[in-house]
């Protein structure tokens, strides 16, 4: 019996789905090994994860909170990716957006919500868009490697936030805690069944991006640039304009996530000292983007699913006494299995029985 590999010519949606599910299962298997190694029963672990994340009321809420963040950052990754650009700058754009929205809130704490919140959203989007736009411009004009640039900007944004929220900084907590000042009451996101309205924003953006990419002229140009930059140029498309557009929009979306994370999630409502941990979550938008095969619509269920997995993971930490960061470890393993499975999306495995 031999194994033969054959290049695939077409990949049906079903095949793709099957392979993705398979990769998630393999990640689960690896996770089981880790759980077992810590002396606990893997099956119990999985039951725990799913039941907590999607079964309990609290867990489900947490799933949504994190899921909304993931939707935003996944979309922020997907749009530039379709144009062939890697936006690794979601955390930085998120920080910028958070600073901007907090600034607006602290400056006008007594405006009615109906005015204040949209203002904050616009500020967050603008700030994130500017940061993204810097990388987009550099890429479009001088073809500077956007991976390095966005990462550098992430670090710069991190220190900027530190400046703003540490003692002596403009947003420092007047009560002396190491966090920022609290978000004024009117600036907090209104809740619907305890879920911040940002969920509609996120889902709406997903639908909007889908529509943009498939039906509009600019979406067509973005796709062409991503598939074949030489053809795009030949057809008269401007790489500079397109790079700017996708990075500004992507950055704006990540900026909006800044609003959600720090003014939307109940129980937070300020930029905490450990904001970097939340910011790093933004990186996982990349995994989601890959799972969703760069489709904005698929990003929504993918993000919610992944979010559920990690929320369940944190529950696992507590209930079964496993280490901190289990959810992140799982995401890491998942990333690797998804990547490895790219191979199977391009090659079919054939089992050949001897004698045929």
């Amino acid at each position, binding site marked *: 019996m031999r194994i033969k590999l054959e290049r695939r010519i077409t990949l049906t949606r079903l095949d793709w789905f099957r392979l993705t599910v398979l990769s998630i299962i393999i990640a689960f298997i690896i996770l089981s090994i880790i759980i077992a190694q810590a002396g606990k029963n893997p099956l119990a672990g999985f039951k725990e994860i799913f039941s907590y994340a999607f079964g309990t009321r609290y867990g489900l809420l947490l799933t949504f909170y994190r899921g909304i963040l993931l939707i935003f950052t996944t979309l922020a990754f997907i749009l530039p990716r379709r144009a062939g650009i890697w936006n690794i700058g979601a955390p930085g754009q998120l920080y910028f957006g958070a600073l901007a929205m907090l600034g607006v809130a602290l400056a006008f704490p007594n405006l009615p919500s109906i005015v204040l919140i949209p203002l904050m959203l616009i500020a967050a989007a603008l700030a994130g868009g500017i940061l993204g736009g810097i990388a987009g411009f550099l890429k479009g004009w001088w073809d500077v490697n956007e991976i390095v640039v966005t990462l*550098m900007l992430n670090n710069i944004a991190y*220190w900027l936030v530190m400046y703003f929220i540490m003692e002596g900084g403009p947003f420092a907590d007047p009560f002396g805690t190491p966090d920022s000042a609290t978000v004024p009451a009117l600036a907090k996101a209104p809740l619907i069944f305890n879920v911040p309205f940002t969920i509609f924003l996120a889902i709406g953006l997903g639908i909007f991006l889908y529509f943009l990419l498939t039906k509009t002229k600019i979406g067509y140009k973005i796709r062409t640039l991503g598939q074949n930059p030489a053809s795009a140029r030949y057809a008269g498309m401007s790489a500079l304009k397109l790079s700017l557009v996708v990075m500004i929009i992507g950055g704006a979306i990540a900026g909006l996530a800044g609003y959600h994370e720090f003014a939307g999630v109940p129980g937070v409502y300020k930029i905490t000292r450990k904001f970097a941990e939340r910011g790093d979550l933004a990186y996982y938008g990349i995994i989601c983007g890959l799972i969703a095969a760069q489709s904005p619509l698929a990003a929504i269920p993918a993000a919610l699913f992944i979010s559920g997995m990690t929320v369940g993971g944190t529950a696992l930490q507590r209930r079964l006494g496993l280490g901190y960061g289990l959810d992140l470890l799982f995401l890491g*393993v998942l990333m690797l299995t998804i990547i490895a499975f*790219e191979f199977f999306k391009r090659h079919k495995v054939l089992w050949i029985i001897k004698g045929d």
Partner: protein
Amino acid sequence: MWYFVVSCLDVTTLLLFASIGELLNQRSGVLNVGIEGLMLASVSLSFITTKLTGSFLLGFMVGMATGSVLGFLHGFLSITLKVDQVVSGLGIWIFALGFTTYIAAPYAGPLGMGTLGGRIFGISPFFFIGIAVVFVVWAILFKTNLGLKIRSVGEDPLVAEVSGIKVERLRYLCVIIGGLLGGLSGAYLALSYSTIWAFNPTMGRGWIALALVFLSMWKPWILLGGSLLFGTVWQLALSPELIPLLPTLPLYFYRMLPFAVTIVVMILISMERFRRKWGLAKPAALGLPYIKE
């Protein structure tokens, strides 16, 4: 003042090991953007090993081994499975992010065992080892047959294959050794540079190392110079009072300095004047998967 210089050299050493490893990778045509992840993983594992076993040597070895294993993984994903090299590198980084947080959380705190290697006139011996490594890499790449083969693989693997060179094997070799050097950098960070475990010990320096490789135009001696430059900039960011003429801004703004400088330098080399020279120095097959007929 001497203390300042020594600290600069410390950071230089850190950057140097990580970037010289990546230079070797890229010369063979493999782009590994996950250096930061590689370093993170090796920092955490060497720290934990030393803490648990009390042996510096063991921790050091484990750190290098971690680097090699992750390098091999990256190689497996991008050479054999022909996954896009950027995706693979990012995957390693994201994996390391999660892995490190999970593994090392219970071990936060100081090592409490002094530093590895001691000091020669205050300078860590690793600095000199680093320079030696640069020399060795330079000599191999430009003076030996092996180096010629490596460079050819990075320029045009098809031609190399037809000339009798085993492309995949060479790339694996480079990726493993590159990973080893990256792991060395992480072990150095954990056991000699700063023996306290805290969240995000690398602080983005792995990415600066990546940028360094581009900026050095893949020439080892320029890389050394670049590491020295960025090591100094990094240290200056921590002690900005040493920079003359700068307005006194809050400390946090200075921490941004190394990253801003990186961006500026990357812009400079992308401008028309340097673009051509840089483009010619670039291994032509960098980042492209090698597909055999």
